[in-house]
């Protein structure tokens, strides 16, 4: 894929190759291994100990994660948390957190995506109380970013809490795709104010949208490849069923949808790197296309696999469940298109009757 990259072509190819080699190596993917390879800091600046590469380079990692069905909190930490931190003004705590992510020293989560979790409450000493729901990747959260309302402050703030603080109670849950998740109860946990929540949350959403699109591209591609392979091998009525035109046209539709997503993702990466005007709308559209492609491709993949698609033996069901999870966490087609519909022009205010 032609994504903008600030790496020279050779380094880029080496990077892609080494990620692909790691993914097909057979070992269970681990955060530590990604850190050792330096991939967690791919799209972070050199100041923070990162590669200084662009978002397009990180996209390569997420595509692989999607294709191989990794269950690591990449979208949460590298997408949401880093997106939020990068949208905040530079500061000692923020810079330290980014450096710790790049070095693989800390996994950071964000508890404030719209809808699910009401903002926590902060008292005058910045102790937070509230519930953060459904933080994916429950095993290890070294720091958690929390949106909280501070009495007397007009806008909600974004705070960071220590993930191991005793006033933070964890309820382990398992998400639909098999990911570990937690609900966090904050019982007066000490927190540090990083800045206004608004821009930080927008930054979180932007970065997570791009990375989720990349993961979707990976999982949709894997589901489509597996489906083609199945249909080419499966014989009924005396021939491989991939020869039936009805089947072929359905595969073409899936392919086009994937190509649209890939083209939109490439355009969005370029717009993101340059902070172009209209980025927010563009990313809502990317979100909508990701959601549409993820669910359509994976549900069609199940159908085209026939009964085999229902078995836990194949990865197809896992891809479908992951698509459902991404839908719920980052917005469905209806959510994203709804936001876009809201942003359409409204009538000029005439005199009311």
């Amino acid at each position, binding site marked *: 894929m032609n994504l903008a990259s600030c790496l020279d072509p050779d380094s880029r190819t080496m990077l892609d190759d080494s990620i692909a080699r790691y993914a097909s190596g057979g070992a269970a993917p681990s955060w530590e291994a990604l850190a050792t390879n330096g991939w967690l800091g791919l799209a972070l600046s050199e100041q923070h100990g990162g590669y200084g590469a662009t978002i397009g380079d990180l996209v390569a990692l997420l595509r692989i994660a999607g294709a191989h069905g990794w269950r690591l909190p990449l979208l949460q930490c590298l997408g949401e948390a880093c997106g939020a931190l990068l949208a905040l003004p530079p500061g000692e705590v923020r810079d330290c957190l980014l450096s710790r992510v790049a070095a693989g020293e800390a996994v950071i989560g964000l508890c404030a995506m719209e809808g699910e979790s009401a903002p926590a409450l902060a008292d005058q000493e910045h102790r937070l109380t509230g519930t953060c729901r459904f933080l994916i990747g429950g095993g290890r959260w070294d720091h958690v970013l929390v949106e909280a309302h501070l009495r007397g402050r007009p806008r909600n703030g974004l705070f960071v809490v220590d993930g191991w603080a005793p006033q933070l109670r964890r309820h382990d849950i398992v998400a639909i795709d098999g990911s570990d998740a937690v609900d966090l109860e904050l019982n007066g946990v000490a927190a540090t104010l990083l800045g206004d929540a608004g821009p930080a949350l927008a930054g979180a959403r932007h970065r997570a949208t791009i990375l989720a699109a990349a993961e979707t591209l990976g999982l949709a591609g894997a589901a489509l490849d597996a489906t083609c392979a199945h249909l080419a091998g499966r014989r009924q009525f005396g021939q491989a069923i991939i*020869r039936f035109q009805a089947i072929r*046209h359905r595969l073409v539709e899936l392919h*086009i949808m994937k190509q649209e997503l890939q083209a939109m993702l490439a355009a969005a990466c370029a717009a993101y790197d340059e902070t172009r005007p209209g980025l927010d709308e563009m990313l809502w559209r990317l979100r*909508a296309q990701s959601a549409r492609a993820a669910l359509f491709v994976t549900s069609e993949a199940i159908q085209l696999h026939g009964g085999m698609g229902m078995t836990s033996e194949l990865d197809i069901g896992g891809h479908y469940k992951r698509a459902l999870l991404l839908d719920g966490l980052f917005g469905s087609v209806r959510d*994203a298109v*709804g936001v876009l519909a809201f942003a359409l*022009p409204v009538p000029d205010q005439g005199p009311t009757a």
Partner: protein
Amino acid sequence: MSVPALFDPDAFRAEVRAFCARALPGDLRAKADANIYFTKDDRVRWQRILHEQGWFAAHWPSAHGGADWGQLQRFILIEELEYAGTPWITHFGISFAGPLLCAFGSDAQRAAFLPGILESTIWWCQGFSEPGAGSDLAAVQTSAIRDGDDYVVSGQKTWTTMAQWADMMFALVRTDREAGRHDGLSLILIDLAAPGVSIRPIGTIDGLRHVNEVFLDEVRVPRFNLVAGEGDGWRCTRFIVGMERPLVTELGKARRLYDELAALCRGPKAQDAVFRYRIAELGLRLEALRALAYTAAERAEDGAHADVDASMLKIRGSQLQQALLDALLWGKGRSGLLAPSEGGEEGYRSDAGLVADHLHARATSIYGGSNEIQANIIARALLPA
């Protein structure tokens, strides 16, 4: 292979926009705004304005009067011309016959035919489809039999767009009945004023006159008018079809229709949440088409043009255009119920042009190789047989 001149896409786009704002005559702009079908005279006028600007044939090789433009620049030009509502360039000459002759014609043929295309004095149409050869184009039966220095051409072409305005037709004919389905085909240039040619309009649901039947009854065509050699017809046809598919993306037209739709949000439909949702969804599909189109155009610019790209654009472009016109008609309420009309009238009846456009757009998924054919092309390229 010529090297396209470097250009700045954003600056060029801005230049085309400014040009359209300045150069489109007022009466044509009024027609565009009312979705009124352009006459041949309208089109000739506009093509000459474009030619004067140096853009009409810029995609041709410089050796033959062009400017060696790459695919991307031509794509941006077409997109912006469509977006501004300017008369649709009649591609049969400038986009198909011209490049075909540049690529496969003889010097004498280029000298004979290219000037008329450049000056918009000679109009062309495309003689591909026949009653028995639509989607299955290689089933063409029209025959061309050698007789001295002529071919004698007999048969029937159909769905021939704008034949009623055309002076010439490039036609796919069978020169060898013994050879294989594809090998027996040749491409020949037929003067429509020749004895034995008769053209009959086909009435269509949109009320517009755009397609025709062309009957060829022992029409004598000089051997000079054979493009490339006997048996090269399929190669020439593939060349033309490859030029055609990206053009039917109609990204600029989609953007224009989308703007028209979004403007309805300021009117009585503003509070209709379902309507707004539908527009936003079409905006999403427009963005997807745009991303797909530019990915393909950039690939083509790099010389990595793929048939699959053109087919995807054809499918998605036609689907979107139909969906946009569907939503527009819905958004117009009862004025969308007018009988289609070419002329349109002042005032509220101008929506009749839109109705015609809506009905006409049903053809976009059929012509230029139906969407099912496009799906077959993509499947053949990507999937095991």
